[in-house]
């Protein structure tokens, strides 16, 4: 019996030593108490090597849990990640209100279009209402091009566009085989949907981060990691390549209702753009999309629309004017003007009160442009910081019909051969 007790004691001692050794190998807790939450979190114990997401969301203020959710105290991966919102993507529209919303964040004031979540989720990029209405109209399933259906059922009683609600588009309720096929194969092109194509240039997140978080192939300024596809980054300096993850993925065939992913590998910027038959002027392939297209065009203005043409309105004349008129400009004097806020978020240009910037016919400032003392203009690339000087049409040798301001009219002279 004594020998048995000695053996059992040795066994217990061995077990205790083993436990002490295991305990010494545990993750060393790294505490962080973000100023916005005031609640300690330990995510950095494992994720300390992750680059900070951006200057607008410093980790010391935001921490991780405010946006990502998760168990802030857990040092065991399964539990810690268990209650995370949207998996790796807290900005997915299913959880965006909890992750990015709130009165002090991105769903607060309607003033100055700052209720971003409301705008983005009702935008044509999220509802896909335009494509759905067009296809249903084309195949005789609805009498006109007015949108009635969207990717999700949505109501907006304050919509001033004439559309105050969309029912959910359920392909299985469609009788026309083409519309059914569209529903089954083409509903991966909106902000609610996971990308249909994956890998490299097609990778993007859903929701806000579809645009605001670059992928490895679209993050042209800094490639942080070789292993992860997505970069831990939030930015308003969105390069054309990010837009390309959706808008340049290939071509579709309306007769067969099929999508053909792009097969070629473009070697220069000009050929890395849209469909092969499209025409471009120089600015269309040297600038980034967001250098001209405004935030309400991209993210909506809070109203529900039937077609992207109803919200997309920037034309050549917005910057260049016409033969008979200069482009509209605005002298920004109010220090609280939205242009200052925008230039602060993406500081490629240092705006000063009294600066003259171009302004769209809807009154949106093109805050990355400036009227020069000599009457010319300059535009600073939002993603590149590159400066592009340009002149107005008025006073030039342009022979365009002032009443025809379509891009096709400008392309007659200003297209680049491809």
């Amino acid at each position: 019996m004594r020998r048995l007790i000695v053996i059992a004691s040795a066994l217990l001692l061995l077990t205790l030593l083993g436990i002490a050794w295991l305990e010494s190998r545990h993750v060393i807790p790294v505490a962080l108490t973000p100023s916005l939450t005031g609640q300690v979190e330990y995510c950095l114990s494992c994720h300390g090597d992750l680059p900070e997401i951006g200057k607008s969301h410093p980790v010391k203020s935001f921490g991780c849990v405010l946006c990502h959710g998760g168990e802030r105290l857990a040092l065991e991966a399964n539990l810690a990640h268990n209650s995370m919102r949207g998996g790796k993507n807290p900005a997915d529209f299913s959880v965006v209100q909890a992750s990015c919303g709130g009165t002090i964040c991105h769903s607060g004031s309607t003033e100055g279009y700052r209720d971003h979540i409301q705008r983005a989720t009702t935008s044509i990029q999220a509802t896909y209402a335009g494509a759905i209405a067009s296809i249903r109209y084309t195949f005789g399933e609805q009498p006109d091009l007015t949108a009635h259906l969207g990717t999700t059922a949505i109501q907006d009683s304050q919509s001033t566009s004439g559309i105050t609600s969309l029912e959910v588009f359920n392909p299985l309720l469609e009788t026309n085989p083409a519309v059914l096929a569209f529903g089954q194969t083409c509903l991966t092109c909106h902000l609610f949907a996971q990308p249909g194509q994956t890998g490299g240039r097609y990778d993007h997140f859903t929701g806000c981060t579809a645009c605001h978080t670059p992928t490895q192939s679209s993050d042209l300024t800094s490639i942080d990691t070789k292993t992860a596809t997505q970069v831990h980054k939030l930015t308003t300096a969105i390069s054309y390549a990010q837009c390309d993850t959706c808008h340049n993925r290939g071509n579709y065939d309306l007769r067969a209702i099929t999508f053909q992913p792009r097969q070629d590998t473009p070697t220069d910027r000009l050929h890395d753009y849209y469909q092969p038959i499209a025409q471009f002027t120089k600015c269309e392939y040297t600038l980034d999309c967001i250098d001209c297209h405004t935030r309400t065009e991209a993210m909506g203005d809070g109203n529900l629309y039937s077609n992207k043409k109803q919200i997309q309105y920037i034309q050549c004349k917005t910057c260049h004017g016409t033969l008979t008129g200069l482009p509209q400009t605005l002298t920004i004097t109010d220090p609280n003007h939205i242009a200052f806020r925008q230039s602060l978020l993406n500081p490629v240009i240092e705006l000063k009160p009294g600066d003259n910037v171009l302004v769209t016919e809807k009154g949106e400032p093109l805050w990355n442009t400036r009227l020069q003392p000599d009457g010319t203009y300059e535009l600073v690339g939002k993603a590149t910081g590159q400066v592009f000087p340009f002149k107005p049409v008025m006073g030039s040798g342009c022979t365009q019909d002032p009443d025809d301001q379509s891009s096709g009219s400008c392309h007659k002279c200003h297209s680049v051969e491809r």
Partner: protein
Amino acid sequence: MRPSFFHHLHPPSIPARQARFRHTLASGGLAVFLGLVLGITGILEIFYYIPTPGEAALSIQTLTFLVPFGGLIRNLHFWAAQSLVIVSSVHLLRVVFTGAYLPPRRFNYLLGMGLFVLAILLDFTGYILRWDEGIRWALVTGTNLIKSIPLLGKTLYGSLVGGTEPGAATLIRFYGWHIFGLALAAVLLVAWHIFRVRRDGGIAVPPPPLRETQERISRVELVRREVLVMLLASVALLLLSVFAPAPLAPPFTATSPLPESVRAPWFFLWVQELLKLGSPFLWGVIVPLAILALITLIPYILPKPIQSEIGHWFPKSNRLAQVLFIIILVSLLVLTVLGLLPVSY
């Protein structure tokens, strides 16, 4: 050698035949040891546990992940509690299958049954104290069962839950029950139970003239055997604690969506299966209580084992009790296994 305090807790000698591991299955001693482990680890947990809905699960996470050896303490408490339910069941089984409940030990059998119920209730209340998503069945379905009791249901529910739905009052009540209402009662009952073991003449054994052998072992040998079992049990508890940590889930919130599979704690899986049969009051309250009453009344309503056979495995004279016990045991095991199968809703 002058006997130590621990030796003095034991009788000077006990019958050798009934002191063998194969007779006791070490279950009574193990239950006491597990109770000690639970007491010590439980007291340590009190210093970190915060019994409010907002903080409970977080304080357990703090204890588990951030307090040095806190996770180990919690895992030991968890595994000792689960083991106690099993070890107590084995102890009960040994008592029934050796006819050890024959008077004068009949009253101590009642005390033992009381302790067994306390062990289950302690396990259940301790489980609720986690206050995380894992306890949803126990908290919602378990407490709703009380409502199904005619006439008394609402009052009982109100006094246990402290409101119309689980909340802060529920948690503090379960905390109070766990530590004072149940653990303190268990300590007193254990003392009484052990006192009665000595008072009733030690381990059940036939009267001296009817014994096959008069051989006895000293308390020194008995304590050695106990020490051996405690050492081995400690190793087992530690290994379980390290390699199978106690479950944890995100904090319980009334609004969070129902998880895909909601399960009862393992010791109530059989009740969960019974509930699928129909009336919650019948299958969730009456039947479990009837089973408990049946086991409790074994020494009173079934034929008594004869003196010469007690202290031996499977006496012929209490076959009926054995058969009844086996039927109940197998039924509960089958229902538990059914409850473990993947949930199909």
